[in-house]
Structures are given as C-alpha cells and as structure tokens.
C-alpha cells in the first residue's frame, strides 16, 4: 500500500484564507494563480469561516454534488464531518486562479473545545489559558483540520497528501498530524516569529542578544507562552519547516530552536504592461496628482520648483523603530543640511505614511487645498472671459471703432472686476504671519508624545522656506476617496521618486518589493528579508544601479548607517532627470525576479523535500534510484541559481553616432528607448530564469 507522490493533493491552511487581516492574505492571494496552474483542482485552501468576508470573497459551491469535486474522497470526508455536526462553506475564492476553499465554521465545533484543549495538553504539553480567544480558535481550527485530514487520509489511500500551514494560528494541526500518525506530509511556514515580534515591539537590542534570550522566560513574561508553545511545536513536528527570509530563518533558529530547511520568499503577481514605457507614463500621471496636493499644502510658501522637486516616502505599520522611521528622519535632517550647504536647487518632499491615532484632517490642510482650488477656478473663469473678449474684438474689426486687429491693452482683456476677483484669491493664499506649512495633515491624538513628531521637533525640520527637505506626515492609510491626497497607495507609490525603508525588523518587506515591481527605486537594509534577498541575488555594489539601495545596518553602527543612508539619498538627488528615468527602467526589469513564477519555485522545492522525507523509497524509485543532492534539487525545480550582474554595457545605437565616437559613453539596458530593444532586454540581464510561458508544465513533469 503506497501513495502516488507525483499526483499528490495539496492543502494550504491559514487563518487568512478569503479573509484579509495582514500579509498572509496577500501571499496566498498573489500566489494562487501559479499554484492553481500547477495543481488545478488538486489544490485546496482551508481556513476558519469569517461570515463577513466570505460573502464578498467566496462563491459557494454545492458540496453535496459530486461533480464539484475532483477528488471524491474530499467530498466523503466533508460529508462524514457534516454528519457529526461540523459546518463549513465549500466554494470558489474569487481571486485570480479561483482556487477552491473549505472554510470551517468554528462555532459548530466549539462544544469540543475543552476536550481538545485537554488533549493538546496531554499529547503535546501545550497549555491553553481561559480567555485567550485567539488561541481557542487556533485550537478549534487545528483540530478540525486534523480531523478532516485524518478522514481524507483514511478514505483516499492512493494520493500522497501535502498540507502546508502558515503561521502559528494555523499550526495546531501539525503536532496532531505527527502524534496521531495522520498519513499526510506537513510543511510549516512562519512569516515572523511570535517572540521576535514581541521583543522588537518592546525596543530591545534584538540581534545582538538573539543567542542570549531565555526564550521560555521571555515568552512567559509577555504572557504568550502558550502561543509560543504552539509555534514551537509546529516548527518541530512539521516535516519541513520554512520561513520567509534568511534573517527570519536565523531568528527562528534561536527563538524556535529548529533550523529552517529552506526559505520561501514572498513573491508578487507582476503585471506586465504591453508597452514598456507605460509605467513611466503612469509615474508622470500620478506625480501630477501629488503635485496638486503639494501646491495646496505649501500655499503661501510655494517658492520651490516642482520640476526640481523629488518625492521620497516611507510607509508601513506605525512601528517607529522597526520600520526605521527614526533613521529616515535623522537622515532627512542631515540631507537637508548637506543640500543647504552645497546650495542645491533641488527640493525633497518626504512623506511619512504611517497610520497613527488621529482626529481627522486639520482645518489648515483642508483650507489650503480649498484656496488653491478656488484660485484655479477663478483663473479658469477669467481665462474664459478673456478668450471671449479676444474673439469679440477680432470679429468686430474694423467696425465699431475697433482700430486694431487684436486687443492691445491688458485693461481691455482684464476688467477691474476680474482683477479684484483674482487678487482676492491670491490674498487668500497668504499664510498668517510667522506660520509655516504644516508637518502633519491630521490632528494627532497624542501630539506631545508622538515619537515621529518629537524627532522632527528635535531635528527642526519645520518646512521653513530655506529648508531643502520638507516633511509631510500623513498618519492614515491612503485612499482614493480621501478629500486630500486622494490616491490609492499604489498610485501614490508610482507618483513618488524614491521609497525609503531603513527597517530594523522586517521579516520580508513587501513595501520595497512593491516599489520594485512598479519601477520605483527604493532604499532598504540588510536587516530586512527583501534587502538580504536582493543582496544575495545581485552582484555587490551593482544593486543601486538597479534602484535597490541597501543600507548596512548589520556591521555599521546606527550613526554610520544614517550616514550611508544620507549618501544614498544625496546621490539620488543629484541624478539628472534622464538618469532617474534610466534607473526606473532598470528597477522595473527586476520585477521578474520577484514574480511568483520564480519565487514559487521555492514552494515546489519545499513540497519535494517534504515528500522525500516522508516517502524516501518511492522518491528514490522515481528519480531512478540515484540519491539526490542539493544541486539537482535545484535543477529539478528548474532554478539554476544565477546572480544578476552589472548592467551590461552595450555600444550606442547607430543613430547615436556622437556617443559611440566619444567612446567613453556607453549605454546600459536602462538607456534603451525603443520597443524592439526592450524586447531583447532579457539577454542583458543574464537572469536565465528558466521559467517562462510553459515553465509550469516543466515543473509538473519533474515529479
């Protein structure tokens, strides 16, 4: 009696299936297309039922109709559970790829809670206090999933079953699978460790003490010991244990006491535009929207040239230190100093987009936007009148005493009433004596103790006219429906010039990754998963040519890191417009590296490894009896590891004869302007991705 490991069934279990809470949702959702393409109906997602989100996200399917199941035993298992009172929703998740989901109604099994809690204590020694509802739900979900997997493994003995669990909230089932000998293969992925999160939230010198923490005591102190136990038990009893980045892997090794078997970095669903320059156009378009906001915000002190203004931003959860807002502000102050000292004409407007407690917009902010709109409208009205007058005048010539073909005096075009109207609007732009454009767009609840504001106060970046660096703190999420800065987050990112994310604790770092796929250069650190990943992938010192600036926060002390950050920003400020466009082109090309089509390969490897550990003999038979080593693991997954090299220099095109005659002026892929050139650009990269249109088919044949 053996199982078919090639045609295995895949289940992914998480609390964020069809229910957006945090980052796992994005991971599952963006990954769904490639996983569905590979597995088709052999892929199912499982999670708890959330009545609100299920209505929007899931199209229910009749589970009693066998036609709706690819594997009939799945239906049998569900029926058997239904007969014992377990309720669930079976349906199609309305996202790209449309995977099937089973969402268990935890209330239908709540009567088992005490029995299961006692069992968990007995078999795994995991305590569960009263009153922690999150943990109770995790236990209910874990036992229900284990129940289901056990049923299925009994009824279907032909296919191997791989169950992949995300985060501790879904992890209770893993020790159950091991202890109760459920015939499935398990993979556990932590996207950050519980303890790491808690420790970093508490502002400790985390990395320098990673090997010294007494994990049990620290967890106990924070009242999360039972949760920590679940996470640790899941890590230890899974067949394959993974995290999202090397940094988090290291963290897990010390805090969860198991070395991860591999890294499953988070990918993105990269939307490729038909025309390569499309994202550049979008940048210009969205930038204009930000320009509108800036005019309103700085009314009365609008003395800088928007053509010579760069938009920097930091965005994320309001974790002041973890996200590196402290370094950002510090470096902005130093950048301001340098730009002033060098007499630069460039202006930098730095946005801090971090939701904090606030009491809606300030009057000043709303008023500022309004007076500018008023002026705009008045100008429009007057312009209309002027064109009418020119027309009238021209029509009348040479009658009615009109002596010239066109009006010659300004008074004729601009009547006193118009002037009054315009002047009124211009006066409205003035600011009260001695006031400066605001820093915050909202009224803050904790204005006096807010760390961002306090640091801005200390470094005295108050948007003075002489400051070359201006700061705007927007303590709320961006939304196209907001009355000011009405842009969605991704539109805003497209309109900016540089994303700055000098994080201290950042297991993966979707924010800089998103910048990259939108062709916006970004600054990250080698303490963020993304930064470390890119550093690993791109030749040293080449990263910044691709618009990925990586600040060293490991070997440098904070002061040196800040200096490096300032150097990077200064370097960016001194780029010409053309250089920035080229850099954006190169940045956007990197998006292939972050696409799930590439990142997903690591998931393939994780599943292979899990199957290989559970079914060593079958696996050997499948691969022709040869032992596999790591290198052919890579080849099996179709992923030769190649580093991205320097942007290859190519001679200028024949048209550009001057450039080639100068000789020293060489072109980089980013300089390519034509469509045809861009279509060949893959070669310049040496990415040799090995995954293309039919790559998924290759993957399947590897099994």
């Amino acid at each position: 009696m053996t199982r078919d490991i090639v045609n295995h069934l895949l289940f992914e279990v998480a609390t964020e299936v069809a229910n957006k809470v945090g980052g796992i949702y994005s991971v599952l959702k963006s990954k769904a297309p490639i996983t569905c393409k590979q597995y088709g109906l052999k892929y199912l997602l499982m999670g708890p039922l959330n009545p609100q989100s299920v209505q929007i996200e899931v199209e229910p399917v009749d589970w009693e109709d066998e036609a709706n199941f690819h594997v009939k035993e799945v239906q049998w298992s569900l029926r058997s559970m239904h007969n014992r009172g377990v309720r669930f929703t079976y349906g199609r998740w309305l996202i790209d790829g449309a995977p099937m989901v089973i969402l268990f109604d935890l209330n239908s099994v709540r009567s088992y809670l005490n029995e299961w809690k006692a069992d968990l204590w007995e078999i795994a020694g995991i305590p569960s206090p009263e009153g922690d509802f999150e943990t109770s739900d995790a236990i209910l979900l874990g036992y229900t999933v284990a129940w289901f997997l056990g049923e299925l493994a009994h009824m279907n003995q032909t296919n191997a079953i791989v169950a992949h669990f995300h985060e501790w909230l879904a992890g209770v089932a893993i020790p159950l699978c091991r202890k109760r000998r459920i015939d499935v293969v398990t993979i556990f992925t932590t996207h950050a460790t519980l303890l790491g999160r808690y420790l970093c939230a508490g502002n400790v010198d985390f990395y320098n003490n990673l090997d010294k923490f007494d994990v049990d005591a620290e967890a106990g102190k924070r009242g999360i010991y039972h949760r920590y136990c679940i996470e640790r038990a899941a890590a230890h009893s899974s067949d394959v244990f993974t995290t999202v980045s090397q940094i988090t892997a290291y963290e897990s090794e010390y805090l969860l006491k198991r070395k991860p078997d591999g890294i499953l970095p988070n990918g993105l669903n990269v939307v490729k535009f038909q025309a390569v320059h499309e994202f550049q156009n979008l940048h210009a378009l969205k930038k204009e929207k930000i320009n509108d906001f800036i005019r309103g915000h700085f009314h009365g002190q609008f003395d800088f040239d928007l053509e010579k203004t760069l938009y920097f931003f930091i965005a994320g959860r309001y974790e002041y230190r973890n996200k590196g807002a402290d370094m950002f502000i510090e470096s902005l102050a130093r950048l301001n100093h340098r730009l002033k000292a060098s007499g630069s004409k460039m202006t930098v407007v730095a946005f801090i987009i971090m939701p904090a407690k606030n009491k809606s917009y300030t009057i000043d902010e709303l008023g500022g936007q309004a007076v500018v709109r008023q002026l705009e409208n008045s100008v429009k009205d007057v312009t209309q009148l002027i064109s009418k007058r020119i027309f009238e005048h021209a029509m009348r010539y040479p009658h009615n005493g009109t002596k010239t073909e066109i009006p010659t005096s300004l008074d004729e075009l601009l009547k006193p009433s118009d002037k009054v109207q315009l002047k009124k609007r211009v006066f409205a732009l003035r600011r009260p004596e001695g006031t400066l454009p605001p820093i915050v767009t909202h009224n803050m609840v904790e204005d006096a103790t807010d760390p961002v504001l306090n640091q801005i106060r200390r470094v005295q970046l108050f948007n003075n006219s002489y400051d070359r660096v201006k700061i705007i703190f927007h303590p709320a999420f961006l939304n196209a429906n907001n009355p000011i800065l009405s842009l969605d987050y991704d539109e805003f990112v497209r309109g900016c010039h540089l994303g700055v994310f000098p994080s201290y604790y950042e297991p993966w770092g979707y924010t800089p990754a998103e910048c990259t796929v939108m062709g916006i250069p970004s600054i990250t650190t080698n303490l963020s998963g993304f930064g470390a990943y890119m550093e690993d992938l791109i030749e040293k010192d080449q990263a910044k040519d691709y618009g990925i600036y990586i600040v060293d926060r490991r070997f440098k002390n904070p002061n040196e890191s800040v200096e490096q950050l300032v150097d990077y920003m200064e370097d960016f400020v001194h780029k010409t417009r053309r250089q920035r466009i080229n850099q954006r082109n190169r940045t956007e090309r990197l998006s292939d590296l972050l696409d799930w089509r590439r990142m997903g390969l690591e998931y393939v490897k994780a599943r292979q490894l899990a199957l290989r550990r559970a079914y060593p003999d079958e696996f050997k038979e499948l691969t022709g009896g040869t032992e596999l080593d790591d290198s052919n693991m890579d080849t099996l997954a179709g992923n030769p590891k190649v580093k991205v090299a320097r942007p290859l220099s190519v001679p200028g095109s024949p048209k550009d004869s001057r450039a080639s005659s100068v000789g020293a002026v060489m072109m980089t892929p980013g300089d390519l302007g034509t469509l045809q050139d861009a279509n060949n650009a893959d070669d310049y990269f040496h990415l040799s991705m090995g995954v293309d249109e039919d790559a998924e088919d290759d993957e399947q044949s590897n099994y």
Partner: protein
Amino acid sequence: MLGVVTLLYSSDYLPGTLTLAYQLRKLLPKGSHEKKLCLILSEELVEEGQLGDTALNVLETLFDEIVQFKPIGLSDPIIKQNQINLMMLENRSELAFTFLKLHLWELTQYDKVLYLDSDVLPLDSDIFKIFDHVSSQTSDQIAAVPDCGWPDLFNSGVMVIKPNKEKYKELHDMATKELSIDGADQGILNQFFNPMCHDGNRLTEWIRLPFFYNVTSPNAGYQYSPAIKFFANKLKLVHFIGKNKPWKHGSTGGIYNDKYRNQWWSLYMELCQQYFQSELDIDIDQLCRKTKGVNLSSDDRSEEILAVNTTPSWNPAAEPPSKYLPAEAPNLNIAKSYNWESELVVIPDDTPMKPVKDTSIKEPIASSDTTIGDVIPSVEEEPLPHYERPKPIFPWELNTDYKPSRVFPDD
C-alpha cells in the same frame, strides 16, 4: 615655572582625570619645560588600592608631578560645618573633598598655577593663553570665569592662582570659621576673593576672565545656543558640570551639546587603546564594555551584557545616534545555508518540559489542581522518542487496522 594642576579625590573621576591629562599632554608644546603637569591626589585612593597599579602607572606617565594629600575626613570641623549647605546642593557630598583644592596655595614650587577640574575638556592649545591675562597677578588675586548661574560669582573649575603659604592659612582659617555659601570650595573661594562677597573688607580681588575659558555645559540660558554658535571658534575649554559626566552615562548619555561630549569620548577611547590595551583596570574595563559593547576581556560577561545592553541606546527624540554605539547586528550570520537538505535531524521538542512562570496562565486545563511545573515530567524521565498512540478522539482513529504509508522520523 607654571603649573597646570588638577585634582583626583575619587576613582569615579578617574576617566576624567586621565582624559584631561592626555589632552593636556597633546596640547603642551613638545620639549618645553616652562609648564609642568601636576596632580593633587588624595592619599586615601592609593592606600586603599582603589586605583590599581595600572591606573597609577598611567597617571605617573601622564603627569610630571603627583602630590599626595590626606583627604579631610567627614569628622573634620571644616566638613561638619558645611554639611547642611551641602545637603541643600543635591546629594553631592563628594564635593566636600574639593576642599582639597585649598592645597593649591601650598604648591609654591610654581609661580602660577592653572587649576582645571577633571571634568573639563580643553579644546586647543590656546587654553594656555589664559596666563596672558594674569601677567601681573599677585597672591591676593584670583583669575576665574563668571559662573553662568550667577555671573557675579566665579566658577572655581578653571582658575589661575599664585600659590602662597600665607594665603593657604588664611583660606583654611576662613573655611573653618565661616559657612561656605554653597557648601563647597567655590563658595569659600568667592567669599575670600570676590569683592562682591566680602564688600571690600579684604584686599583680595577677582580677575574676571572671558567665558570661553570655561564654557559650562549643559546650560539652560536662552542666549546659550546662539552664543555657542557665534563663539564656536573662540571656545577654549568646555566644562561638563552637573551629575551627567560624559563617562557616567556612556557615550550617549547626554542630550546636551554632543559635539564636545563626542570629542571627549574619542579622546578617552584613544587613551584606553594606548594605555589600557593589555592589562585593564577593572573600572576602565567596565566603562569600556558598557559603552562600546565590545569584548575587552573575556570573562563571565554574558549576563552583564544581557542586563546592560538589551535596550537600544539611541533615543531619536533626544539626540542623533552617537558615533560610539556598537553595530546593530555584527554577529548575524545569515550566510548560513538553508538549502533544502534532505537530512532531517530530529530535535526532541522540549518546549513544554520546562516549568515556566506564565503570569497569564492561571491553571492548565488538563490538571486544574496542580501548577504547570509540577505536572510536567522532566526531560530525563521521559525517554525520547518512543511512540505510543494517544487515546483516540477523532472518529477515524477507531479503525485500528489502518497503517500509515509514510515514514515518521520519530518511529
């Protein structure tokens, strides 16, 4: 001959004294014998071995002359009398010992003495131009800088005097008889020399020196920050007054005028490297450790480091990051491979085996009458891994014939 003199009466101030001497050595013209560095040392420090041989050797290298005096005991009438006033000036009883300062007037081997507190930092060799202001000074005169707290009084941290045994006697007399206005030497000296205090009853005089010979920091005055910018090039000496000495609070302790504290720290680090590399005096060692977070000696430090270093030392709302902070993750070895290796090392998971005090857990569900620590068997007692099927709870577990097809690592 001119003397440049400082005073050491407590090992707490040793870093200050060392750094000051080290800096003065740098600033004094090489090969000139016109000025000598002299230290007044409290005998007690040497006798009780508080300093240690290394530190003493370094002091001997740095100073031309070391004069030892007995400290005045707390029972001395001079101290007793001032105890009350001292209490009023926060808890700085250590200032009492600065009565040692009076011994300056006994150093008659020098024509004139430039006295410097150990918590000052001379910025350049222009500091010695201070002697130009006092070319015709008599022993009835004292040259000093107005105190920023009350400019009609002088600050006794930096002063030029003319030693004279007579004056020492008079001063000593006065200190015993009269109450010092601040309970310490500065009061007595003002009462003795400052016409503002003695209303012309004496012939003594105060020669007022420019403030930049003794710029006290921190300073809360509203003129201070613009002035320190304006006079930045003229500053000759910074005096770190108050409890917040540079060496007391690590390299990031102060929220005041970081430039000079940083300068102090780089001198101090330089000095440590030059003189204390091989054999470290305990106090210095501890200081270095706390501030740099580096291994200077490898003993049982792990606990201390954990206690000292778990909180990041940069407070962004108060100051820019110091140059002397340790790196944030130098030991993070992420080059480690996580490369899908097929070998599975089964690590017995001992998570719940350790009794832990979790304040959030009142009582575990399964055993409401015991604490967690009691109920958990210790690791030694339970042999691992020995698989036993747990009692069934799921319906499918009732089918006992069924054997899983996969391999389990703990079978």
